[in-house]
């Protein structure tokens, strides 16, 4: 069982989940693209005790420019966060369709080293014409995409195992730095690409980086955490159960959240945001109301889902309320505890460190 029974992730991209969040960030709109903003965001999330921070991303701008059109690459943001945090997990969204699988596996392994075992990967599968055009390609057919996502995840997981633990032996007597029998070609062959291996980076501290994926990608046991949507708790529960049945160990509910001291003040904030831009329905659960009510909602989800990922409408407003009222209430209910310093993300999630398939095989 995990150390906390409702591990809590928070999405830190941009100024918040609401498209008009930039108008209420309390800083100049362009500041979201600075190191300072990132530093503040991750520091606040870690201080609040969140288990995991996620960094959304896409190869294309987040909006046309009416709302925010700028965004730093998520892997770089997560890496920057790695050396200024000590406990929180870090999960950039990296897309399987617009990157090289080998680079992606290297970047994530490196993030795990830099974060001393706190890296996760939120699997992205951008398949719109604009995203694919950035690499001179066209969208994949649904079946092709399904296969491609699986292939890239399989390739990354193989590459993370390509160096066995303890492959670096530094044996002065024989002059060998590493044991060549413990560093492996992977010879991965997917439908659309092959990878020889081994990775250029030794095995990540967690053995395998934690893999999060939207449940719709149907990754089954390839993912460690499925992210499930649903407009009510019943739907969340059903989808979580479905995801677990396919072999994903954990299912986290996706929840968009806009808080106020009271339900009325939250509704007032929502109305003001709505005047600037509509908040499109993405299929996620959405909560608009008092912080106290939100804490009760989360308590009711324990046992139905294995964790939650929160998408604060406006980080500058909602993150402090989550920190002050919501996480402490979960803590008091024995449902949540900040990750321990020095623990890996797997430790915090109660996920075992996987055996290496090459070690297991030999």
């Amino acid at each position: 069982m995990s150390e906390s029974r409702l591990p809590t992730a928070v999405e830190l991209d941009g100024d918040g989940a609401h498209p008009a969040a930039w108008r209420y960030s309390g800083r100049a709109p362009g500041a979201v693209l600075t190191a300072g903003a990132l530093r503040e965001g991750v520091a606040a999330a870690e201080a609040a005790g969140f288990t995991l921070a996620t960094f959304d991303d896409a190869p294309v701008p987040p909006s046309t420019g009416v709302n925010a059109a700028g965004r730093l690459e998520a892997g770089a943001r997560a890496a920057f966060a790695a050396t200024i945090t000590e406990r929180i997990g870090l999960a950039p969204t990296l897309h399987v369709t617009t990157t090289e699988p080998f680079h992606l596996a290297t970047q994530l392994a490196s993030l795990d080293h830099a974060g001393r075992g706190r890296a996760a990967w939120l699997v992205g599968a951008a398949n719109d014409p604009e995203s694919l055009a950035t690499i001179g390609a066209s969208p994949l057919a649904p079946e092709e995409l399904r296969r491609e996502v699986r292939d890239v995840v399989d390739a990354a997981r193989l590459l993370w195992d390509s160096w066995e633990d303890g492959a670096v032996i530094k044996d002065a007597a024989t002059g060998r730095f590493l044991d060549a029998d413990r560093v492996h070609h992977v010879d991965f062959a997917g439908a659309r690409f092959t990878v020889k291996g081994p990775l250029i980076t030794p095995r990540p501290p967690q053995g395998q980086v934690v893999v999060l994926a939207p449940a719709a990608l149907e990754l089954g046991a390839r993912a460690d955490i499925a992210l499930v949507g649903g407009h009510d708790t019943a739907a969340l529960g059903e989808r979580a159960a479905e995801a677990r049945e396919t072999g994903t160990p954990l299912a986290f509910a996706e929840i968009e959240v806009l808080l106020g001291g009271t339900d009325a003040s939250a509704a007032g904030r929502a109305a003001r945001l709505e005047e600037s831009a509509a908040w499109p329905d993405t299929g996620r659960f959405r909560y608009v109301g008092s912080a106290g009510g939100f804490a009760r909602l989360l308590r009711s989800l324990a046992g139905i889902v294995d964790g939650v990922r929160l998408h604060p409408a406006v980080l500058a407003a909602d993150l402090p309320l989550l920190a002050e009222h919501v996480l402490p209430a979960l803590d008091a209910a024995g449902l949540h505890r900040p990750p321990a310093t020095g623990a890996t993300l797997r430790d915090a999630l109660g996920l075992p460190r996987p055996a290496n398939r090459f070690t297991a095989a030999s």
Partner: protein
Amino acid sequence: MTEASTGALYDPHARVHLGVFYTGVGPQLLWNDPSAADHVAIGTFVEVARLLERGLFDAFFLGEGLRVRENRGRVHDQDVAGRPDAITQLSALAAVTERIGLVATQNATYNFPADLARRLASLDLLSDGRAGWNIVTTDNAWTGANFRHGGWLAHERRYDRAGQFVDAVTALWDAWEPDAVVATGEAKSWARPGSIGEVARSTDLVDLRAVPTVPASRQGRPVLFQAGDSDGGRELAASRADVVFSANTPYDKAVAYAADLRARLARYGRSADSLRILPGASVVLGDTPDEAVERARWVREEQMSAPRAITFFEQYWGTDLSGYDPQGPLPDIDPVEGELDPSRGTIPIERRTGKLALIARWREQSEQRGLSMLELARQVAPGHPAFVGTPSQVADEWVRYVRTRAVDGFNITPYLIPSALEDIVDKLVPELQERGAYRTAYEGETLREHLDLPPLNP
């Protein structure tokens, strides 16, 4: 030296610019010493970057190799191997350093231009204008086996691809107008309409259409380094780079290289001052000249041990030589036909071709002087310490290099982390400062400023 030889005037005020080329892997890095730091731990990188920042270095520079080196089909086990992704690691370092430039070696053959442009631009913003890109073009199919399109690029076209790649990347970096983002949350829109452009390319070498998501940093764009010594490499440097990371370290070679490069620059209408020349340099210091020489001998012997000598020749013979005595003569058998070992990507060009002639020369050399395999390997393998002496001796030599404009400084390849670098920061830097040839405090904020490069054209 006069202008005629280097293509630039003697400059009595010239300063030495220093970077560290942190390969993180390879034969030059000693692992067999108790003081050698953990080569993968983030703490080692943080410690080194902060040390160099204390030494007022321009740049901390990560190398890249996209396939783990092998010897006859097996992972090469004698050298330090395994390193992080450069941009990931430098982003992590950006958070805990303040001034030092952060340069990522990144390959133009096995990356997607828009993806790489975005990652580098992100590092540039996160470091507030301290990013650089060392453009390399290793194209062999052996490396390509790790990538979607395999060895897709003909060797002769590697610099066509690189040139087009760099042009697409710089266009992406330049696609946001300077004040594209509005000043307040009350404005009509987040970005001024029409202030963010799209970049499209469609050739057989570069094909993309992208609207970039990252604006320019305070230095305008990441500084462009070029490493690669062929004619194509030099043309890429002269046409597009801000800094060359050259392999021409000995003084005479450096002078010839500088003259050649400056002539090329002029052909592109660029001033001699728009490109910094920083050759690689290995440095071995001692408190006395004898101590330095003794230490250099020790470094060389550690770097080329008996098992490594066998492996070194195996790469050229292409066959198992483990039955030969490293203390004995060169193998009497003929080498296997065919290419050199695929680790050739970073083997100098002259060694990649004509291996039979090379082996014939080695035979002659070892017979004439009665050298064993081990002795010969120590003489002929690349990686001899270029600068050996007391801090004062090396400082004098470097001052001559920069004042005669043979180079603008050096990219130091350390043999032992971190102690070899501590010696340079604590002993060599003060000697350079005493000679008025090194800054005594950072004067600028960005990597471009550290390098004294002219501002980018608007």
